[in-house]
């Protein structure tokens, strides 16, 4: 019961942070609030027994992602246009319809924490029961990630590699040596003029 209360309080805080992100115009504050949002999400994951996921979310969402967004803000302006969104009513209508459809979809779902839910009956019991004897590692998430579903993790490593290569292709600069030569030329000219 107290677990449910903690999760509900955390989600209410996340909703307040989300509304603040939507309303603020100063992008620096928005980026900081995104870091807070990810950290609250990581806390919610811990209460929901997903410790590996919480670790990754805290490191990636509240760490690297915030730093990258701040780097982007250093390269662009840090203030959003203060005009309110032009088509706010249309956006709210679309959001409302989507929300109604989603809530209608959840009416068929099993209750929160139900051990008889279909999700717990296919492959998961086999992984939990046999991971100790077949692989011998205590952390079932690592054994599923690296051994039972190792092929997917290979694809994910390729995705990370591609993202780094993509950022290098989009933003990498190759004119550094030329600029060093240019700088050497200009300092030669100015120092030559000053000395002689």
């Amino acid at each position, binding site marked *: 019961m107290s677990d449910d209360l903690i999760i509900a309080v955390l989600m209410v805080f996340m909703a307040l942070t989300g509304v603040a992100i939507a309303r603020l115009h100063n992008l620096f504050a928005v980026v900081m609030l995104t870091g807070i949002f990810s950290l609250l999400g990581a806390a919610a994951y811990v209460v929901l027994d997903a410790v590996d*996921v919480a670790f990754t979310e805290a490191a990636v969402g509240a760490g690297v992602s915030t730093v990258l967004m701040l780097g982007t803000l250093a390269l662009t302006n840090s203030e959003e246009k203060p005009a309110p969104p032009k088509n706010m009513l249309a956006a709210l209508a679309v959001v409302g319809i989507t929300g109604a459809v989603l809530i209608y979809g959840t009416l068929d779902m099993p209750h929160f924490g139900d051990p008889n839910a279909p999700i717990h009956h296919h492959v998961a019991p086999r992984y939990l029961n046999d991971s100790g004897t077949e692989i011998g590692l205590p952390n079932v998430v690592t054994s599923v990630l690296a051994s039972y579903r190792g092929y997917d993790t290979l694809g994910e490593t390729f995705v990370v590699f591609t993202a780094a290569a993509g950022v290098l292709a989009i933003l990498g600069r190759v004119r550094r040596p030329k600029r060093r030569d240019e700088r050497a030329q200009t300092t030669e000219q100015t120092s030559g003029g000053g000395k002689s």
Partner: protein
Amino acid sequence: MSLDFPGLFNYWLIIILMLIGFYIVIAHGNLVKKIVGLNVFQVSVFLLYITMGKVEGGTAPILADGIEVYSNPLPHVLILTAIVVGVATTALGLALVVRIKETYTTIEEDEIDAMENQG
């Protein structure tokens, strides 16, 4: 299809978070704010999957003596991959925003549209 309120309350809270993220994406013109909204949306989707994987009375899926009930590890694996892929796409999106700023000198969507329609 009973309207059992307490059992589904968590899912409805998560859907509210998803809708906030969705609103941020579609209702704002600033590109960085759209990427922020996408991150908010992603975190709430991950929360939905992890909530589906929780078993009442279970603990984290790390095998230990004396513990009988564990939470489902499969959504955890799926979401681990999804988080890393999410940060990869965020990094690429932010790199594109930087280049758009250098080309158009603005990152507001309507100003970019106006420049595209003129030129």
